[in-house]
C-alpha cells in the first residue's frame, strides 16, 4: 500500500501524522489534570503508528504504476475492512447494552461499563464507525467509477479515512471515561468536534475535485446523495456543536444555547443526522450497487432525481417533531410534523423505485443473497420511513414518545435499512475491489442474510410490543383519576421483550461476524480475476465514451 505512494506523498503523509503527534502531545500535557490528557495520549499513539508506518517505507523505491490506467482503491479496501471491524465491535457492545437492560447485574459494578457510557459507544460505533467508514469507502469507489476518473491525489483520501477513524476512537474512548456533552449522536467534546470539521472539509473538497476531473458528462445521481450527505452533515455538526470550553485544559464545554433553544438545535441536528447521514448517503449506495448487482438500470432515473431534490428540501424542516408537547412553540411542532408527513412521498419514491428496478430480475433475488440484502433493505427503508412519518403525527407521538417504540423504529432503520444495504454493498464490492472471482462462501452470505433478517424482525417486533405496552400502561388511569401502574410495573412488563431484543441483536451480530470472516477469506483465498475494463477513461481518448446528447 505504501509502495503506491510517491516519495513526495510519503513525505506529506509523514508531516501530517507528525503534526498529529504534536497535537496529541500538547493535549496530553495541557490536559494532564483532566481526562483530556488521556485523550491526548490516544491521539499521540494513533498518529505515531501512522507516522512510523510511513517513515518505515519512506525510502522504498518509487511506484511504477501508470496512474492514468487505474482507479485508486487502496483506501477503499481499508475502509471496508474498518467498517466491518467497527460493525462487529459496536454491534457486540449493543448486545451487551441490551442484556444489561434485561439483567442489570451484567454491568459488573464498574463506572466505565454503566449503561450511560457504553450505550453511546454502541450508537456512535454503529452509526459513525460502521456506517461512516462504509459511506466513505463506497463513496471513494462510486465517485471514481461513475466519473470514470481517478481521485486527484493519494494523500487526501487517507487523511479523510484515517482522520475520521481517529475521531471515532476519540469519541468512543471518551465515552468510557465519562467525556460527553450529553447531546444524542453528538456526544464528543469540543476538540473532537473541531477535528471532525477539518476532516469533513477535506472530504468535501476531495469529492468535488474528483467530480471536476470526470470523463463522463453526467454526474450520476448517487453522487448527489453523497454530496448532500457530506455538505449538510458539515453544517449541522458545526451549528449544533457551538460551545464554549470551560477551560482549554479540559474536556468540559458549555453549549452556546440553553434550555429549549438547545433542545431545538439538538433535534434540528439529530433528525437531519438521520436524514443526511443514515438516509442520503446510504441511498447513494443503493442507487449504485442495486442496479449494478441486478444488472439493470434504475427503474425510473427521472424519479430518482426528483426524490433526491424532494428529500433535500423537505427533510431539513422535520426535526422539531422530536419535541412534541414540550416548551417549543406549537407552530414549530406543527411545522416539523407537516414536513415529516410530506417526506413520505420522496421516501417511498426511492423505495418503490428500487423494488421496481428488480422487476424482471426476481429470479436473481431468489438465487443471490447479496441482491436480496439490497431488496430487503429497500423494503425496510419503505417501512421505517412510513413509520417515521406516522410517529411524527402529534397524537401518535403522545403514545410512542419516550417508549421503546422509538428504539424499535430506529433499529428498523439502522438494522433493516442501513446495515442490510451496507452488507449487500460490501458483498457486491469486495470481489470487484480485490479482483476476485467471487465471495469465498456463497453459503455464508446466505447464512448472514437469514441471521440478519431474523435478528431485525425479532428486535423490531419486541420493541413494538414493549413500546406500546409501556405507552398504554403510562397513560392508564384508575376511576379515581390516579395513575394505575407504577414505573416498576412497566419495567416488569417489559422484561420478556428485553430478553427477546438481546436475542435479536445476538443473531444480528453473529451474522456480522460471519460476514467479516467471509470478506477476510475472500481476500486471502479466492483466486484472482483480471478485470480488463475496470479503469478510468483515458484523457487521451479521441472521443468520449458516449457522445454528449443533443
Amino acid at each position, binding site marked *: 500500500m505504501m509502495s503506491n505512494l510517491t516519495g513526495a506523498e510519503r513525505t506529506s503523509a509523514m508531516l501530517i501524522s507528525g503534526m498529529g503527534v504534536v497535537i496529541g502531545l500538547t493535549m496530553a500535557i495541557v490536559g494532564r489534570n483532566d481526562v483530556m490528557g488521556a485523550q491526548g495520549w490516544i491521539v499521540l499513539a494513533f498518529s505515531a503508528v501512522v507516522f512510523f508506518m510511513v517513515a518505515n517505507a519512506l525510502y522504498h523505491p518509487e511506484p511504477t504504476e*501508470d496512474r492514468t490506467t487505474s482507479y485508486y482503491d487502496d483506501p477503499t479496501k481499508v475502509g471496508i475492512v474498518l467498517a466491518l471491524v467497527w460493525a462487529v465491535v459496536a454491534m457486540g457492545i449493543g448486545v451487551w447494552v441490551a442484556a444489561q437492560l434485561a439483567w442489570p447485574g451484567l454491568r459488573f459494578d464498574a463506572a466505565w461499563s454503566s449503561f450511560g457510557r457504553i450505550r453511546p459507544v454502541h450508537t456512535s460505533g454503529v452509526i459513525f464507525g460502521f456506517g461512516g467508514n462504509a459511506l466513505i469507502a463506497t463513496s471513494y469507489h462510486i465517485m471514481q467509477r461513475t466519473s470514470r476518473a481517478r481521485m486527484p491525489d493519494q494523500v487526501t483520501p487517507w487523511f479523510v479515512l484515517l482522520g475520521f477513524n481517529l475521531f471515532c476512537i476519540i469519541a468512543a474512548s471518551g465515552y468510557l471515561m465519562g467525556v460527553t456533552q450529553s447531546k444524542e449522536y453528538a456526544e464528543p467534546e469540543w476538540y473532537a468536534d473541531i477535528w471532525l470539521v477539518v476532516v469533513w472539509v477535506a472530504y468535501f473538497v476531495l469529492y468535488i475535485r474528483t467530480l471536476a476531473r470526470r470523463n463522463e458528462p453526467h454526474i450520476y445521481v448517487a453522487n448527489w446523495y453523497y454530496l448532500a450527505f457530506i455538505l449538510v452533515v458539515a453544517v449541522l455538526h458545526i451549528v449544533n456543536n457551538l460551545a464554549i470550553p470551560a477551560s482549554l485544559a479540559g474536556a468540559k464545554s458549555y453549549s452556546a*444555547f440553553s434550555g429549549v433553544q438547545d433542545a*431545538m438545535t439538538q433535534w434540528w441536528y439529530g433528525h437531519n443526522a438521520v436524514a443526511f447521514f443514515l438516509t442520503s448517503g446510504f441511498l447513494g449506495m443503493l442507487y449504485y450497487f442495486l*442496479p449494478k448487482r441486478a444488472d439493470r438500470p434504475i427503474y425510473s432515473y427521472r424519479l430518482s432525481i426528483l426524490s433526491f431534490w424532494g428529500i433535500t428540501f423537505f427533510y*431539513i424542516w422535520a426535526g422539531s417533531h422530536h419535541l412534541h408537547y414540550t416548551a417549543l412553540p406549537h407552530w414549530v411542532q406543527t411545522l416539523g410534523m407537516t414536513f415529516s408527513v410530506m417526506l413520505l412521498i420522496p421516501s417511498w419514491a426511492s423505495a418503490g423505485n428500487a423494488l421496481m428496478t428488480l422487476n424482471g430480475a426476481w429470479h436473481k433475488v431468489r438465487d443471490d443473497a447479496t441482491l436480496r440484502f439490497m431488496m430487503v433493505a429497500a423494503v425496510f427503508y419503505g417501512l421505517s420511513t412510513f413509520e417515521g412519518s406516522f410517529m411524527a403525527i402529534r397524537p401518535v407521538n403522545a403514545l410512542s414518545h419516550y417508549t421503546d417504540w422509538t428504539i424499535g423504529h430506529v433499529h428498523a432503520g439502522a438494522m433493516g435499512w442501513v446495515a442490510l444495504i451496507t452488507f449487500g454493498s460490501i458483498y457486491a464490492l469486495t470481489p470487484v475491489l480485490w479482483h476476485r472471482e467471487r465471495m469465498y462462501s456463497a453459503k455464508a452470505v446466505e447464512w448472514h442474510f437469514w441471521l440478519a433478517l431474523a435478528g431485525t424482525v425479532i428486535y423490531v417486533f419486541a420493541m413494538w410490543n414493549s413500546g406500546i405496552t409501556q405507552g398504554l400502561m403510562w397513560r392508564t388511569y384508575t376511576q379515581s383519576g390516579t395513575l394505575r401502574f407504577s414505573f416498576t410495573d412497566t419495567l416488569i412488563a417489559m422484561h420478556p421483550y428485553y430478553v427477546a431484543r438481546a436475542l435479536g441483536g445476538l443473531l444480528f451480530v453473529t451474522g456480522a461476524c460471519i460476514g467479516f470472516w467471509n470478506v477476510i477469506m475472500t481476500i486471502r483465498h479466492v483466486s484472482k480475476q483480471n478485470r480488463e475494463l475496470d479503469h478510468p*477513461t483515458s*484523457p487521451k481518448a479521441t472521443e468520449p465514451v458516449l457522445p454528449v*446528447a443533443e
Partner: protein
Amino acid sequence: MTILVILIPVTLLMGIVGLGAFFWTLHSNQYEDLSGDAERILFDDDRPLPAQNVQAPAKLKETPS
C-alpha cells in the same frame, strides 16, 4: 425562541445552495439523456487498455491535478 433566528436562516441558506446546485444541473445539460445516464454505470470502459501499458508500466506519470 431566539434560536429560530439562527436555525431558519441557516436552513434557508442550505436550501438556496441546493436550489443553486439544481439550477446549475439544468444549465449544464445534466438531464438531457436520462435513460442513457442510468445505463452507462452498468458498463465499464468500452475498450481494454493499450497493450504497452500493461506490459511495460515502467514510467510513472504524474496525474494532472
